[in-house]
Every structure is written in structure tokens, then in C-alpha cells.
């Protein structure tokens, strides 16, 4: 009979492969739990999860929702490149990332980045580095739809417009 305090069967001690594990631009709602499970592995001690969500206010103006548009083929490539480059300079980092496009309501998740590492520093810094680079490079645009019926493309190069 197996004693109740018996340890579970030992898992492999081989370190899980690091790097970019999953990257996608998708029209489907993002399953954050699935991204976490992709990044989780033996040897991981910290998972940093960054979620970008649709704000209900921008520059004080009430927002109904957001339409995201992408140059899809290039956005897939750039998203993978951005995450891959951060992995390249962060040994042991495991990343899963998705960016959603299409019409999103207030509070919905537009981007999810899971960065996993043995230690919290690289996990936190990795997620931060990826979102900052994503915002500079990945060809995705968002059009805000306001309560008053107007719409406008968000332009982060204009200082009055906050970037989500």
C-alpha cells in the first residue's frame, strides 16, 4: 500500500525548453489560462501575466468599444519577432502571447503575455519588454467608438491620446 505522504512520481529534471512557445494574432477571445499552462513547466518559479484591456474612458471621453485591425500576416511575424528577441536576451524565459483583433467590448482582453522563468525578475522584466516593443512595432491599430457615436483611430504619436 502506498503511504499517503508518498511523493508523486518524480518529474523529469531536464529543464523545459525555453523561448517563444506560442504566438498568435486571433479574432477569438483570449484564453489566458491556456497561455499560462503553455508557459508553465518544470523549473519555473515565476509567471508574469500582462493583460491589456479595453478602457471605458480615453482622455476623459466615454468609450463604447474598440475595433482592432491588423496587417495580419506582418503582425503575426512581428509579434513572434518581438517576443522571440526578448527570449533571445533572457536565457530560460518561456513566453506565450496572443493579440486579439476585431470588435471588443469594454474590459475585454486585447493582448495577453505570459512570461515564465525560474525567477521573478526576468519574468516581470520579460513581459514588460515584450509589451513595450509590441507597441512600437506590431502593425495593429485600434479604432475607438465613443458613446456620442463618433469614432477615431488611436494615434500614439499624438501626445493628447493615451495609449492603452
Amino acid at each position: 500500500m502506498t503511504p499517503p505522504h508518498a511523493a508523486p512520481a518524480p518529474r523529469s529534471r531536464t529543464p523545459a525548453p525555453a523561448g517563444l512557445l506560442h504566438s498568435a494574432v486571433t479574432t477569438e477571445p483570449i484564453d489566458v489560462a491556456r497561455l499560462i499552462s503553455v508557459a508553465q513547466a518544470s523549473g519555473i518559479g515565476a509567471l508574469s501575466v500582462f493583460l491589456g484591456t479595453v478602457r471605458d474612458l480615453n482622455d476623459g471621453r466615454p468609450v463604447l468599444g474598440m475595433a482592432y485591425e491588423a496587417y495580419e500576416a506582418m503582425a503575426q511575424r512581428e509579434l513572434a519577432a518581438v517576443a522571440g528577441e526578448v527570449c533571445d536576451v533572457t536565457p530560460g524565459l518561456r513566453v506565450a502571447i496572443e493579440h486579439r483583433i476585431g470588435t471588443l467590448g469594454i474590459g475585454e482582453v486585447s493582448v495577453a503575455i505570459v512570461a515564465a522563468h525560474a525567477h521573478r525578475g526576468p519574468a516581470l522584466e520579460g513581459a514588460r519588454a515584450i509589451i513595450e516593443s509590441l507597441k512600437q512595432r506590431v502593425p495593429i491599430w485600434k479604432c475607438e467608438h465613443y458613446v456620442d457615436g463618433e469614432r477615431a483611430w488611436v494615434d500614439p504619436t499624438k501626445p493628447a491620446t493615451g495609449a492603452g
Partner: protein
Amino acid sequence: MTANGWGTALDQKPESLRRRYLALVMSVSVLLFASYADAFGTRRLVVPVAAPCPVGDVVQSMRTLPGGDRLPVRPLVAINQAYAALDSIVQPNDEVALIPPVAGG
């Protein structure tokens, strides 16, 4: 647009001249997104330019079209789904895209 003034009545030119003219021009298909698609009222433009030419010449040609005045001085461009400098050479069949200020996240 006519290159070298040969573009008018091209059908009436001798075949040899016609062939030479057609070798000098190409139609570049330009993908447009977001605010640029709104500016031009379309998601795809076909721009005739000399072949081959810097992608900046494609942008310059577009400025003469309705909505072209809304392009910034140096818009971001991509050739075959990779960012490119404005002096990068466009070849026939390249996929050119104008990239408005990106706003992902």
C-alpha cells in the same frame, strides 16, 4: 501616370517601342490600413511607377491622389511584410504596405 511621355496612345507605337515602354513601368499594389485606408477610401491601391524604383517614389505618386495629402512626410512602409526604408527598391510583384502609427496593446 506616364513615364517618359510614352504613355499616351501607347497602342499606336511600334511593337518594339511598346515593349520598351512596358519594361520601364510597373504597377505596384499598395495595401492600406486604418487611418490611411480611410484617407484614400480603399484598402488597396495600384500605383504605376518606373521599374524598379525606391518605395519612396511610390509614396510620392500616392500624394497626388485624393486623400494623399493626409500622409505624413515620412510614413512607415513595409515591403513583403517587413519594415523598409523609403530608399528601398521595389521590384515587380513586391507586396508594399503603408503602415499608420501602430497602436496595438
